[in-house]
């Protein structure tokens, strides 16, 4: 900014703020959904110290604030990937085919809770939960059904699995091998982000240290044998859903990312070998601009730390590639059709933020799992954004906005402040054990709830505009209890039909490898191929690693 403009702006802005300070304002909280204050107006002086080439630059160039690809959506739209899974493998396979026919371009598997915790469907802890909030997978047999008629050499598959991620990856990969598809052709993602399980999602099984070892085993194996596989999807989504603010989501997620990088380096891996396969997963919440700034800040922070702090040399290692899901927690059970609109705004923010793939929530997700129709509307929402709104014609169209750039920088600075605090606490794992994240997130969640109850924040249909709440009824998907009965019966048949001698031998090999500190993934592949169950493989690890128990506080 030239000195003349600076002086004239300073004078005018002072006058303006004085004038506007005297005008009446509505009795509302002018903060983001995270409670961050926002100024009434942003002007060139708010970004005077931002250096365009240094801080923003061009798309596809360091520090990637404007996007990771030079051509962004002109090259290819984001992957439209709806998270799906319910009932049996057959039920979910049908949903996959339905979505693919509708123009979806990638798969994303939702597993049921027993699968997420490494319990077979016939385990006592699985009673009542089989197939309820995702698909029930016990062995490679279920994987065969789940992906029947889908070319695993062509499609990319994302699997939301963490505690037993390495086991489920083995089930997936073994099934592909059995079908004659080479491991190096498999493309997709295992979420495999165990740190955020302790922080927010809570589907952990083993304590942090052995869990991190399983993560580094999968990083090492995939680097060598599955070069197209994203080994970890470092996730802020669940942190945000648990109640964090946007800045906390940004900071805690990237702090987890740095912890994986450090673990990989400590395990003797070359950062440029594994970093290109790390990917991210963020929430796209209600506050439109805050979300866009968060995505932009995330790219810049990651690039800077990877290059400057960890010495990564390959530009691929500097790229923060991310999947986005709209905010489930923002959906309301009241007037559920309004959720279509909320989701559209949030999906748009993800696209303006430069996401690589997107899940748009279905309107009925506060009531149950998506019906076919609700899922179709969610997919159509993305197609509308891609093909009708015109927003993907030009890259990062909000760049240069005084507000967007000032806010992007502010979020970067706030995240850096959290990194310092986490470091002072002794790192991510220590901070988990101290309950730091749980306290921060719990407080933010309760603060938001109070803001809604005091009507400082308006939620349409919940604390205002309630007319019509009674009349809106939409269809709900129900998972029949028969799914559990059938799944248990089919598991029983599997245990009878397979070569149990071979299963036991492979499980013993797995135990020996796990105890000796060898990479367990090749042994898991052998177990999977012999039709060992997820629960049996998990049990081997439980015997050696023990189980994690979270301290209960609120």
């Amino acid at each position, binding site marked *: 900014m030239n000195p003349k403009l600076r002086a004239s702006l300073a004078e005018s802005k002072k006058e303006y703020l004085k004038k506007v300070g005297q005008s009446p304002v509505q009795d509302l909280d002018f903060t983001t959904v995270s409670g961050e204050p926002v100024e009434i107006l942003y002007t060139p002086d708010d970004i005077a110290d931002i250096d365009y080439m240094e801080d923003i630059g061009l798309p596809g160039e360091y520090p990637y604030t404007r996007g990771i690809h030079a051509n962004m959506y002109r090259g290819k739209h984001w992957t439209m990937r709806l998270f799906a899974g319910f009932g049996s493998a057959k039920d979910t396979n049908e949903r996959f085919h339905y979505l693919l026919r509708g123009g979806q371009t990638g798969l994303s598997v939702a597993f049921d809770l027993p699968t997420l915790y490494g*319990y077979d469907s016939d385990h006592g802890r699985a009673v009542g939960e089989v197939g309820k*909030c995702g698909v029930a997978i016990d062995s490679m047999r279920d994987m065969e059904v789940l992906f029947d008629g889908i070319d695993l050499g062509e499609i990319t598959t994302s699997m939301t699995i963490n505690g037993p991620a390495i086991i489920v990856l083995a089930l997936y990969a073994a099934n592909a091998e059995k079908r004659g598809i080479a491991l190096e052709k498999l493309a997709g993602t295992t979420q495999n982000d165990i740190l955020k399980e302790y922080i927010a999602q809570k589907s952990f099984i083993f304590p942090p240290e052995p869990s991190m070892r399983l993560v580094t085993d999968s990083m090492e194996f995939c680097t060598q044998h599955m070069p197209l596989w994203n080994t970890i999807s470092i996730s802020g989504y669940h942190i945000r859903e648990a109640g964090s603010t946007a800045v906390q989501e940004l900071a805690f997620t990237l702090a987890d990312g740095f912890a994986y990088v450090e673990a990989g380096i400590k395990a003797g891996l070359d950062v440029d070998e594994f970093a290109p396969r790390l990917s991210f997963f963020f929430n796209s919440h209600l506050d439109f601009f805050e979300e866009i700034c968060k995505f932009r800040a995330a790219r810049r922070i990651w690039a800077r730390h990877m290059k400057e702090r960890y010495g990564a040399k390959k530009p691929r290692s500097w790229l923060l590639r991310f999947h986005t899901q709209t905010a489930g927690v923002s959906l309301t059970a009241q007037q559920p059709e309004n959720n279509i609109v909320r989701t559209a705004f949030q999906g748009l923010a993800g696209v303006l933020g430069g996401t690589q793939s997107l899940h748009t929530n279905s309107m009925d997700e506060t009531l149950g799992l998506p019906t076919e129709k609700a899922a179709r509307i969610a997919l159509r929402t993305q197609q509308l954004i891609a093909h009708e709104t015109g927003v993907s014609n030009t890259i990062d169209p909000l760049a240069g906005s005084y507000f967007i750039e000032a806010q992007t920088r502010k979020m970067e600075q706030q995240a850096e402040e959290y990194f310092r605090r986490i470091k002072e606490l002794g790192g991510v794992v220590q901070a988990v054990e101290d309950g730091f994240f749980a306290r921060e997130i719990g407080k933010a*969640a*309760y603060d938001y709830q109070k803001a809604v109850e005091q009507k400082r924040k308006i939620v349409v249909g919940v604390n205002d505009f309630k007319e019509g709440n009674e009349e809106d009824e939409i269809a709900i998907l129900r998972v029949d209890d028969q799914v559990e009965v059938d799944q248990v019966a089919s598991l029983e048949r599997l245990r009878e039909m397979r070569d149990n001698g071979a299963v036991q031998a492979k499980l013993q090999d797995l135990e020996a490898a796990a105890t000796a500190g060898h990479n367990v993934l090749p042994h898991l592949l052998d177990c999977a191929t012999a039709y060992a169950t997820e629960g049996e493989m998990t049990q081997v690890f439980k015997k050696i690693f023990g189980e994690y128990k979270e301290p209960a506080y609120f």
Partner: protein
Amino acid sequence: MSKPIKVLVAKPGLDGHDRGAKVVANALRDGGMEVIYTGLHQTPEMILEAAVQEDVDVVSLSILSGAHMSLFQRVRKMMDEGGLKDVPLIGGGIIPDEDVKKLKALGVSAVFGPGTDTREIVRYIRDLFEGNQSKKAD
């Protein structure tokens, strides 16, 4: 001087969504109640044990995993057989209206769905004990 109402907030089953349970626990405490939070992954047996041991006045469950029919039923039955027949069982989570009716028929006193104002829960629990001073009076 009467003792505060004592509420057990429990997370049954494998569901890890604890935001709601913790928000409610905070709200009940701010509403003057004594709150025991079980933490995650409780079996019906563990919930009964905690309820008996802590001698609570109300048991509340938070379930967002779709397993509510099975879990509420098992906890209610266990409470009935375990000497807590008179202790109300309430809850919340992702529970369709149709199931709320069935749960009430099974002996669940109240179900609070998404969007509930926490003050409504506080009021509901207070009302349960109003006029029942014999239970709360010291």
